[in-house]
């Protein structure tokens, strides 16, 4: 077993555990001084964070291919959750199996470093194959709904999330300081801090609702707080973990916080349509796995392609 993480990445991980400790102690202090208030949900939330951060840290510490298996499993439980909450036709059981099989293949392309196939496999090959398999059953009633929802699920839960995994595979030449793992930690940290700071600023100062029809808890104040925190952190961490200059880091901070917000309300709209509050109950205090990775479905591919365009041009095949 080989541990080869760049020092800045290790320090960042240590910093994250430090933040979690502070959060845990703060909630503990709050619970002691306000014993009449119920902090059980906040507690459960932080406990889940501990579990998620620990599993993720182990996955990247062990590096190749443990991290690929970790993200493959993440896509699997996300797709399983998605396909369990959306209405699916009984006749499409075989189609669903093919969709699950696509996860293994998508991560196999990452494992062997076949960049071109990684990019087109789900948007082209699965896009063409799934309706073909569906036609074999010949059930046309609800065909459009079925094929549309299944392929959207693959894009959302597998294609976008697999970009996180490919970040680790990026060559060191584009980011000599901290490698692909540094980029991954940078992206994940910014996306999650953005979620948390939007939530906190929204709770503290939230007045003006942005889209009350989709998500009544989202406020202009929360979004702005998230944008400021995330952009600040993006600029501060960039020299540590990434090759980004000031302009790129600032732009990415803006991009991640705004699109993270869109990813979040995207899943909110889905849940509202299905009439459910949480997508599942895998993560106590958070809800389901989709409730946690919602922002990442937007930030992961956008961050990946921005970085590849500016820093890995011509280095991937």
């Amino acid at each position, binding site marked *: 077993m080989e541990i080869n993480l760049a020092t800045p990445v290790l320090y960042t991980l240590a910093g994250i555990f430090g933040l979690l400790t502070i959060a845990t102690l703060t909630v503990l202090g709050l619970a002691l001084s306000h014993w009449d208030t119920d902090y059980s949900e906040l507690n459960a939330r932080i406990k889940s964070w501990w579990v998620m951060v620990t599993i993720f840290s182990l996955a990247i510490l062990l590096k190749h291919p443990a991290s690929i298996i970790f993200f493959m499993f993440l896509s*699997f*439980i996300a797709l*399983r*959750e998605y*396909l*369990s909450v959306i209405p*699916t036709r*009984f006749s499409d*059981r*075989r189609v*669903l*199996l093919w969709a*699950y099989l696509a996860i293994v293949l998508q991560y196999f392309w990452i494992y062997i470093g076949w960049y071109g196939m990684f990019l087109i496999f789900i948007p082209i090959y699965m896009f063409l194959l799934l309706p073909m398999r569906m036609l074999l059953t010949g059930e046309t009633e609800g065909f459009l709904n079925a094929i549309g929802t299944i392929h959207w699920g693959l894009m959302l839960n597998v294609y976008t999330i697999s970009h996180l995994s490919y970040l680790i595979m990026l060559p060191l030449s584009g980011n000599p300081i901290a490698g692909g793992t540094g980029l991954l930690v940078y992206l994940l940290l910014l996306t999650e801090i953005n979620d948390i700071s939007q939530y906190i600023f929204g709770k503290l100062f939230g007045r003006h609702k942005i889209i009350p029809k989709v998500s009544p808890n989202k406020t202009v104040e929360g979004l702005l707080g998230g944008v400021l925190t995330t952009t600040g952190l993006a600029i501060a961490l960039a020299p540590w973990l990434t090759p980004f200059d000031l302009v790129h880091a600032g732009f990415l901070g803006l991009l991640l916080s705004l699109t993270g917000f869109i990813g979040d309300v995207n899943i909110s709209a889905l849940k509202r349509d299905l009439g459910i509050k949480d997508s*599942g*109950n*895998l993560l106590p205090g958070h809800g389901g796995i989709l409730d946690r990775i919602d922002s990442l479905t937007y930030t992961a591919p956008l961050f990946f392609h921005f970085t590849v365009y500016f820093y890995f041009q011509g280095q991937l095949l």
Partner: protein
Amino acid sequence: MKQIISVIFFLTTKIIVLVLLGLRIQHRERLPTTGPAILVANHNSHLDTLVLLSLFPLSKVQHLRPVANEEYFLQQNPCLAWFARHILHIIPVSTESGNCRDNCSNHRNFFKNCADAIAENQILILYPEGTRGTPESIGEFRSGIAHLAKQHPHVPIVPIFLHGLGKALPKGDFLIVPLLCSIFIGEAMYWNGQKQIFLQQLTERVQALSAEK
């Protein structure tokens, strides 16, 4: 040998239930930890029995006795029959005999086997619909469970509702599609002296659990 196969089988079962079905258990505390008891569930899939077995620790699994169709499990295929007898420890029941007059000895045998198991503090698993039926719908309960309850008025009968398994692995298919499934465990009930009322109450309990999903 039997022991090894048995342990491998139950560990695989637990992994399948966790990874492929992500089983959500509601009211776990209502599950009896020791026998005798009778678990009564709706039936849509072969996975039903595996899910129920997976709720118990490996050391307890030997005490579980699924009531299973004799023609299907014991008379089709010798491998399946060996497996059903020695790993699953089924209590065979014949579904072909319509009523007691045609096949009295079969019925008597079945109830005797059940009484023996209960006397040994085992936990029976019984599907009163008698068949897996159409996916994700509850069929009519047959009266066998009422007879059993009448013969053992002090044994707790635990109604259970299983959700989603008929879609993960329906009747007639052999490939499991990973989908989240749930199990709802109801409060134990006892024989109340009246066959029709008992059956109706039991059906209502299972249907009430199905409304929780």
